[in-house]
């Protein structure tokens, strides 16, 4: 199991274009549809729990690892998710520190942005489909989306309000 986790997440690490959220559709496809480690509901709940914790937005990986294989699983999954990409970033940063090629960087960004945008929108649609079971949950998703997009309201207020609404009305 630990080897499975290490292999899966080190592969995803190198595919995380523009950030970890780009890998969520693939992650859900593998752990929910293919391997049946989690139900769709559990997947979206673990994503939500990862969001309530402080820190970088890769913590869903830690949660999936620990769901499968306890604390060791969580640590292995986290390490596998950060190491391949991190080592790449470190090497590139060291090699490119002296002679920055500005055009290359602008080109990479221009090429990556539409791909990243498509992937994070797909990730969000997937999470919404998994967690919106009725009018109330769909309303919570829509309200949180609008407030996150248009305001600078702190996400913890939204998450707290959403959990409270669920507790009271579901």
């Amino acid at each position, binding site marked *: 199991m630990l080897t499975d986790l290490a292999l899966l997440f080190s592969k995803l690490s190198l595919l995380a274009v*523009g950030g970890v959220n780009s890998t969520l559709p693939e992650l859900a496809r593998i752990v929910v549809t293919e391997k049946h480690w989690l139900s769709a509901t559990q997947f979206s709940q673990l994503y*939500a729990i990862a969001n309530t914790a*402080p820190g970088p937005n890769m913590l869903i990986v830690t949660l999936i690892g620990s769901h499968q294989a306890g604390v060791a699983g*969580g640590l292995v999954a986290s390490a596998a998710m950060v190491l391949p990409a991190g080592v*790449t970033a470190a090497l590139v*940063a060291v090699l490119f520190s002296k002679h920055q090629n500005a055009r290359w960087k602008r080109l990479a960004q221009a090429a990556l942005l539409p791909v990243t945008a498509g992937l994070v929108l797909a990730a969000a649609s997937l999470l919404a489909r998994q967690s919106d079971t009725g009018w109330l*949950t769909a309303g919570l998703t829509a309200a949180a989306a609008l407030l996150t997009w248009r305001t600078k309201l702190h996400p913890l207020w939204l998450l707290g309000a959403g*959990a409270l609404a669920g507790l009271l009305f*579901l």
Partner: protein
Amino acid sequence: MGFGGVLPIIRRVMVDDRRWLTQTEFNELFSLCQSLPGANVVNLSFAFGAREGGASGAVAAVTGLLSAPVSIVLVLAGLYARFGGLAPVRHALLGLAATAAGLALGSALRIASPILTVPRNMLLAAAVYGLAFGLHISLPLIVLGMLPLSLALSWRLVP
């Protein structure tokens, strides 16, 4: 400390408080990390750590960044496994999950809306969206297929 995104905090500590980097150097390093795969902030600490202190610097920086969040989330995982089935907890989690999906949608719209004004970007993003969400094509295939296409289309536009 980094509720809802670590980037602003890291920027403040590295640029304003400790003066390890100037704002321009920070922007350069961050944009480099954004064009590479992986969690951007984690990459940033790997890159900065490696530049300052080699391999051990990179390890120190990343351990510092991740040890507290990973420990906290492991505790939450234990609580979820133990209490996740109780009715009130389950209801709160359903509301929480729906809200978190909204947060994901909101930040996706923030990323997407400024670039989707260009037709080329809109077509590429729509194609990627359809492949990932509609057709469940695997991510390696999407990246290997769409990234070269996107790069080719950007080639003449980027000065």
